[in-house]
């Protein structure tokens, strides 16, 4: 008895670490690996785009009318547009806009939505009712429609589009965070913290929120794709980025009138959106499976 009393338990063989499990899952799930590679590529393009693009000036209004409407070739793999701009360069430069918008939107939506949801779910009662009724107000509209209405009111532009998307996205995070807080507040460690006289704000932000991270990250990953799509949609209908910004959605919209003869104008930025959104969805699904032990085999 005395011996065991003074012995630390040998580290129990736990389930393998997250990175290891992710690696194994990737090997089984080729699609997720494919998604991850695309995400890495898009992120690299977003950061280093201006140095990687053959014609970085095309993002900022440099034109070459002598080389307009050229089909894809060795010099211009994705062809050129009606102003002679290299579509390949513009697609590369567009990655930064897509990533910027989607990360800012999802980041701000989390920053606003999660604390509100955690407070609502932990406190319950009147505060919960108030916060959730407000979110219901926003959730009553389809997010894209709400964003469109807001941009229409504020005036088109990338900044306003970003703001509009934040406004229509945060309630979803409030919902998720509230649901998690409602169940987490019943956990013994929350009772224990309360019994130790820990401040309510500390309980919410050190106990409830950190334990909500998993599902929120999953949702955020999938939402990055969705927001890229939504931002593209706003740009497509002229409510997002303004020309000459190399925004993928805007490029699809601009190329629309030439789609029958110069198919490359819309197709390549469209494919960029498609693969990026797909990639974030695939990786989001993988994360979901990794975080949910019931789905592990």
């Amino acid at each position: 008895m005395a011996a065991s009393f003074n012995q630390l338990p040998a580290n129990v063989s736990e389930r393998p670490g997250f990175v290891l499990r992710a690696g194994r899952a990737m090997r089984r799930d080729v699609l997720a690996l494919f998604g991850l590679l695309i995400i890495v590529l898009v992120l690299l393009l977003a950061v280093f785009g201006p140095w990687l693009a053959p014609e970085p000036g095309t993002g900022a209004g440099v034109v070459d009318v002598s080389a307009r409407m050229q089909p894809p070739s060795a010099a211009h793999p994705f062809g050129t547009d009606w102003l002679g701009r290299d579509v390949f360069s513009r697609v590369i430069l567009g990655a930064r806009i897509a990533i910027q918008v989607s990360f800012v939107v999802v980041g701000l939506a989390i920053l606003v939505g999660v604390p509100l949801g955690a407070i609502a779910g932990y406190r319950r009662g009147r505060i919960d009712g108030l916060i959730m009724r407000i979110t219901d107000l926003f959730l009553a509209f389809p997010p894209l429609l709400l964003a469109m209405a807001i941009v229409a009111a504020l005036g088109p532009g990338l900044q306003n589009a970003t703001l509009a998307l934040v406004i229509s996205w945060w309630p979803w995070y409030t919902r998720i965070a509230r649901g998690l807080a409602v169940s987490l507040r019943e956990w013994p460690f929350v009772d224990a913290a309360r019994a130790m006289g820990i401040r309510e704000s500390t309980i919410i932000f050190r106990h409830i929120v950190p334990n909500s991270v998993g599902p929120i990250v999953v949702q955020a990953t999938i939402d990055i794709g969705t927001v890229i799509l939504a931002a593209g949609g706003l740009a497509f209908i002229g409510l997002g980025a303004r020309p000459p910004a190399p925004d993928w959605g805007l490029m699809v919209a601009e190329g629309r009138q030439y789609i029958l003869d110069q198919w490359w104008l819309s197709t390549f930025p469209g494919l960029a959106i498609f693969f990026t959104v797909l990639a974030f969805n695939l990786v989001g699904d993988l994360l979901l499976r990794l975080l949910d032990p019931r789905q592990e085999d």
Partner: protein
Amino acid sequence: MAVPQTRPPGTDVPEPVLRIRDLWIRFRTPGRRTTAVSGIDLEVGRGEILGVVGETGCGKTVTGLSVLGLLPETAEVTAAELNLLGRDLRALSDDDWRRLRGTDVAMVFQNPSGSFNPVFTIGAQMRDVLRQHERVKGAAADARIREVLTACAMPDPDRVMRSYPHQLSGGMLQRAMLGLALLCRPRLLIADEPTTALDVTIAAQILELILRLQREMGFSVLFITHDLGVVRRVCGRVAVLYAGRVVETAPTRELFRAPQHPYTRGLIAAVPRTQRVAGALATIPGSVPPDPGAVEGCAFRDRCELAIERCARERPELRLLGSGWVACHVAGEQAAGQTDGDGQADGQGQADGDGRT
């Protein structure tokens, strides 16, 4: 009615740390009101370990939680007196409650593996408590934590501080929990079934540890349990709860030697004994009434073979009987033969208890 002989129990307890008089706890659910505790009197003396025993749902845990102000909002608490270290708990604001928890009174729960936040190290969670209650930070905080973990028989406190909860065993976690509870040197520790989730050898270590720390640090303990063996080992005095009431309270030795209340006798008789090989285990027939608070008279009467007509009419108050207090109209008035029989059964129980230690 024999009012003159009924006196609040434990007035002989010197310098009470906790004094509860006529505590009622009711829960409001839509369309219903359930009484969990109906008029409990309890007193915990300085440096005393008071055992609170009873079966599930008898109100032990809610009584403990009421001392911490941790009952859910649906609970209505009324008491003639609810006093901790001379402070009237009924008058506390939310902030006062928060400052009181962890400093004057702390609680150890049943489930050690769930009692720590899985995403932070043990050390980080203990630092939170020190920072909040005493504004002690950095190296000074770490020194305090190391000290208390060492006191809790942790051979390698630094490693424990760096560990995440899932890296420690249940026994280690319960010791860490005890360390956390004692970090700000509370005067009263509420231990709610602290060993129930542990296996017997680990449980025994934790009990020994609580006893030793109690001797060294001099705090009082309100020890909530359903395990009579545990009570016998650690508690100086016992209060037996039944259906939200204290039915008997006496020094542990007396309670086991000569239990007065029929329910206490049933409980003691129901402890399985190794010597008694053949035959079914002893049980108490029947079950607790669904809303015992609404019961007039004695809540135990339907399960009691000694019940008389008066038990249905009149709620028995605690009265002095021998060296303890008992809430029973009949106790002490029946034939001596019955007491002898119980005394004998109890002798066997004692032998068991000794065998286990």
